């Protein structure tokens, strides 16, 4: 087997926070990401899913070292990059890129599309064959934008087109890994499919690895090869796509899947639904034992005291649960 593009072991990211008001000195730790392992190969897509506050975005950002990891190791193409300084990271940045959720906030409104996409070359000090402008126009064409619009500003584009600018910027230096954080959730349904298709085509063309962070399970199901389900900073379940969606073993995964509305009036209303009670507990003060025990219908005393380990239960299938589903 080829070498993984990226390997993460025991990744943790904790943030310090004050509790009890702005003037209080008592510090608490938010364990936003609390032990994530992952291995991703060229051309592969791993979906990172979970509800808001589960740590999926923090995980994505820590992987790219936009946050300094608290613990764990990040190995990029065989090289340990966990503690590299921003300066040491710079040459590697061309290899690992990010696509952001909000195409309205992630593009500087004062810059033209040409500057925005071309910045990648300036920062890395690379001159593409034929010059920056020609290359930017080629990229614009590739992502489905009109190359004549190179001197336009972001506000002159629609949401879907702006996301295409974000994609062009990310692929400009032909990276090996892209972390896409909710890249289609701000777009209209009829536009989402266009951007998903574009991402898939580009992956085929450049053999890039994607870490696809999203809460929309139907999109994740469509695009991913493997899926990691997170809850309150912990990995609950990790499996190949087909396995996870046809045969979820963790009660949380099962509940999450059953909560997704089905676009079929007859099937949708007949299906068995598990409605979880309550909300996500505060990540500042997570429940003892299994973090999911407060909302789990199978929870026992063991779940309230003992943290379940993430264990292998089948080929490439791991879960952290004392009472897995059959």
């Amino acid at each position: 087997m080829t070498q993984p593009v990226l390997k993460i072991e025991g990744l943790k990211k904790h943030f310090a926070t004050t509790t009890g008001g702005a003037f209080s000195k008592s510090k608490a730790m938010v364990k936003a990401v609390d032990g994530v392992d992952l291995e991703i190969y060229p051309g592969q897509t791993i979906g990172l899913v979970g509800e808001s506050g589960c740590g999926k975005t923090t995980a994505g950002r820590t992987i790219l070292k936009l946050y300094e990891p608290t613990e764990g190791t990040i190995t990029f193409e065989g090289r340990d990059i966990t503690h590299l300084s921003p300066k040491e990271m710079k040459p590697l940045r061309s290899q690992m890129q990010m696509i952001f959720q909000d195409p309205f906030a992630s593009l500087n409104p004062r810059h033209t599309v040409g500057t925005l996409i071309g910045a990648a070359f300036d920062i890395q000090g690379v001159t593409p064959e034929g010059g920056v402008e020609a290359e930017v126009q080629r990229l614009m064409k590739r992502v489905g934008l009109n190359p004549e619009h190179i001197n336009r500003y972001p506000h002159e584009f629609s949401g879907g087109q702006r996301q295409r600018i974000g994609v062009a910027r990310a692929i400009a230096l032909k990276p090996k890994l892209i972390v896409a954080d909710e890249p289609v959730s701000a777009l209209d349904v009829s536009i989402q499919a266009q951007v998903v298709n574009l991402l898939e085509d580009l992956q085929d063309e450049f053999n890039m690895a994607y870490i696809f962070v999203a809460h929309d399970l139907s999109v994740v199901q469509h695009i991913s090869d493997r899926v990691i389900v997170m809850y309150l900073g912990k990995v609950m379940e990790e499996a190949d796509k087909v396995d996870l969606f046809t045969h979820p073993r963790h009660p949380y995964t099962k509940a999450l899947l059953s909560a997704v509305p089905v676009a079929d009036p007859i099937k949708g209303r007949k299906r068995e639904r598990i409605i979880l009670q309550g909300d996500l507990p505060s990540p500042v003060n997570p429940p003892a034992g299994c973090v999911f025990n407060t909302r789990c219908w199978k929870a026992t005393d063991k779940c309230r005291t003992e943290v379940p380990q993430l264990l292998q239960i089948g080929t490439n299938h791991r879960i952290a649960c004392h009472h897995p589903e059959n």
Partner: protein
Amino acid sequence: MTTKPFLEVKNLNVAFPTEDGVVQASNDISFTVARGETLAVVGESGSGKSVTSLAVMGLHNRKRTNISGQAFLNLDSGPVDVISADEEVVRKLRGKAMSMIFQDPMSALHPYYSIGNQLIEAWSLYNEGDKQAGKKRAIEMLDLVGIPDAAKRVDEYPHQFSGGMRQRVMIAMALINNPSLLIADEPTTALDVTVQSQILQLMRDMQKEFNMALILITHDLGVVAEVADRVNVMYAGKIVESGSAEDIYYRPDHPYSIGLLNSIPKIGELDSKRLIAIPGQPPSLISLPQGCSFRARCSFADRVPNNLCATAAPALDNKSSEHFSRCHLSEAELVKARKEIGGN
């Protein structure tokens, strides 16, 4: 349904004059909703779904908006047209005969007042009685919408509630005066899926409890399939198709509805075949194209003879008494189109 529908909207137009030109946001909208019925309105941003509902609620600034047409509420005391009625009359219907909940429960509640005070304010508009009676009713309502420990939480402030809990509070507030019509504008869009299914269940229960007419505005075709009796599909300010949920999902008659249904990945379909996207993007509402607004994105326009799609806007024609669409395609071509895009 033999009874008269509660809401009857007839040829409603809403337009906003702007510096750049007139934005035709809602264009010749007609529909009805009966008590106990759920009408879902789907469409992308800018299709006019919210603008139409705000017009029904009388929430547009009349000085800056051109509204024409009619929207009758069939009250026990007789029908009232909320479009032509005096603003004061409409104000007195709001919160009592009709109510609305919004997408973002984070910004819809006032952060300085306790949940109880905000509920009591809504109640006291239409009820005699002191604050104690109001508070009792507020606790009752919080209890009904599934807020645990309501008697204690009624004195808490919005920031002490999670997103899902705040949306429950919004529902409690909207329903405190037993409205006959509830308009829910993307009520679960800001929520996580597990909380979304709780809120949808709650809305179904509340609709039964109060026998309300419910208009659910959403872009999520999954949510629509779960709760809607009837569906209006909107595009560029117009209703392009209207029918029962089964009609829309199994026998869609407009290329836009067909395209929309086929462009979404469906949970449970594990073969990752390429998504069938609708090309292009919606037109500007300031300079709508001549003819059919969807023409530029439609893969079937060339099958209509005489270039009709480019010259004449299709009228809303009824295939059956309950199923309408705006499209020039012949029935035979539609059947072919459905097969070509969806394979069904």
